[in-house]
Each structure stands twice: as structure tokens, then as C-alpha cells.
């Protein structure tokens, strides 16, 4: 759980996004997984400190919601920073498994078996 302390953050969340409140792409969901590109592309510029924190957390694949919780930042802020990192070639993105009207029986069975092992 993030610090809901009354002291507040040192940096206001949207200051980290240069005042932007909307992402440049709309395809980041709460359960989209992001992974840092390792090694970073040779043309990569040095990321800002907050971006660096994100890259550290996604050395292994991590869902956007988890990342936001770990960073103690609103999802909307994290997504804007992830867009920048994606455009800079620093992360790869995997969208969630699509769930359509005609459900995927194999997927459901797999989830059910997994729950059975709990």
C-alpha cells in the first residue's frame, strides 16, 4: 500500500509528466505488462530519475497496476511516463489476453486448474 501520509509527496505527480494529463497512446491497461529493454538501445538518451525507477522495476515483466502501486503514483501518471519510455525504445509492451464474447475454453480451463491448486 502506498503511503497515504498526510505529508504528501515531494513532487506533485503531474510535474513528472511535464503537466500532461493524457497519454500519447491509449493502449496501456492496468494489466498490460511492460518489460525494460536490456541492454538499452545504443541511441538511448539518459532517462530521468523517475523513468530510471520505472526501468528498474520492470527489469522483469510487470503489470502497469503493480508498477503504479510500487511507485506510489497514479496509474494515469505512470502510463504517460511509460509512453515516453516506449517511444524511446526502452521498454516492450504486452497487452492483456483479449477476452471476447466467445470465450477461450483453453484459457478458462487453465485459470480454473490454477485456482484449484491454491
Amino acid at each position, binding site marked *: 500500500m502506498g503511503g497515504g501520509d498526510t505529508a504528501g509527496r515531494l513532487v506533485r505527480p503531474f510535474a513528472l509528466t511535464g503537466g500532461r494529463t493524457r497519454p500519447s497512446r491509449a493502449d496501456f*491497461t*492496468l494489466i498490460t505488462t511492460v518489460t525494460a529493454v536490456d541492454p538499452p538501445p545504443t541511441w538511448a538518451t539518459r532517462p530521468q530519475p523517475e523513468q530510471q525507477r520505472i526501468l528498474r522495476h520492470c527489469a522483469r515483466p510487470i503489470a502497469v*497496476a503493480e508498477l503504479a502501486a510500487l511507485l506510489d503514483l497514479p496509474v494515469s501518471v505512470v502510463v504517460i511516463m511509460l509512453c515516453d519510455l516506449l517511444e524511446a525504445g526502452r521498454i516492450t509492451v504486452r497487452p492483456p489476453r483479449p477476452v471476447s464474447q466467445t470465450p477461450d475454453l483453453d484459457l478458462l480451463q487453465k485459470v480454473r*486448474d490454477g485456482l484449484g491448486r491454491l
Partner: protein
Amino acid sequence: MADSDTVTRAAPDTVKILIAGGFGVGKTTMVGSVSEIAPLRTEEPLTEAGLGIDDLAGIEEKKATTVALDFGRITIGDDLVLYLFGTPGQQRFWFMWNDLALGALGAVVLVDVRRPESSFAAIDFFERRGIPFVVGVNGFYGEHPYPPDEIRDALALPDHVQVLLCDARERGSCRDVLIALLDQLIAVAEEAEGGGTLTRPGR
């Protein structure tokens, strides 16, 4: 190390199930009971659009400038991870439900028998959008004064929606509710795959 293991861990597939219900019905407790991690919380600033449609009368003292979302994780396998999201309980946060519901496998609506009306909105939400759900009756202190059928009648639930008595504090109990949801989803999927008749899974 520059030439470190190039074992580029493939990101797993992710799916989600929503845990819904009225305020204080035990959603976060349930998430915590089955999650492999302590429930995490993210907070979103309340948008102006959200504020516009919300009736904030009487809750000013809560400084409702953010909406919190609690969630947990169950790793199904190397290549598949299930996330459980507790929907914000207060009615004024409904605008978040739409985003949350998108792409969900289904939902568990938790009901508190002492005030079932607090979960009407959640039931209504999933019914209207055709999102599959089961109802978990959270017995506080593990007590269940009413049988499932009485609760079904009280909530005017259609026959195909399962009603399960549960204890949100118990891992096994929460697991069984989730499995019931999956069984319901599988039954529907099998029918669809078999191209069979459009009968709902019986109960």
C-alpha cells in the same frame, strides 16, 4: 555484465476478474485472502468528469480527490497471471467501473446479508453489460443466517447466476467462489464451442 543471460523472460499473458459489491462488504479482504501478494493499492485523482456526475453532498469531509483501487495477483503458470481487482465501492466511483470491466473474464459480487441493497448497483451493472458473475454472500463472523435461495429471491437474481455462501477471510472459501465463476464461464464456453442450444448453465 554486458553479455548477461539473454533469457529474455517472455512477459506472461494477463487476465483479470473483478471483485465488486457495496462499500465495506469485504472486497479487499477477499482479494487479500487469495492473492499471492499483499493487496496493492493504486490511487487515481478524481477527474472533473467524475466529479461532475457525482453527488458529493455529505462526504466533503472525506476530501474525495482520489479513488483507490485495491488489487491482488495469482500466478497461474509461467505464462499466465490472474489479477483480482476490487471495484471502488462507493457509487460515485462508478465511472471507473467501465474501464475496469473492459476485458475482464467475469466478476464476483460480494453481498453483505445485513445490507444486501448495498450490492444492488454492482449486480445491476454486470447484468446490464452482460458480464458473467457469481454472487458471494460474505457471512460476517462466518455466520450465514439465510440459505442461498432466500438470498437469490431477495436479490431477484436470474437462475443462471450462482449464489455461494462464503467467508471473505478464508482462502479456501474465496477460492471456491472463484472456481464457481470459472465453472460457469467454462459451461458457457463449452456450449458456444459445441454450437449447442442457447440454454444457460442450469442450476
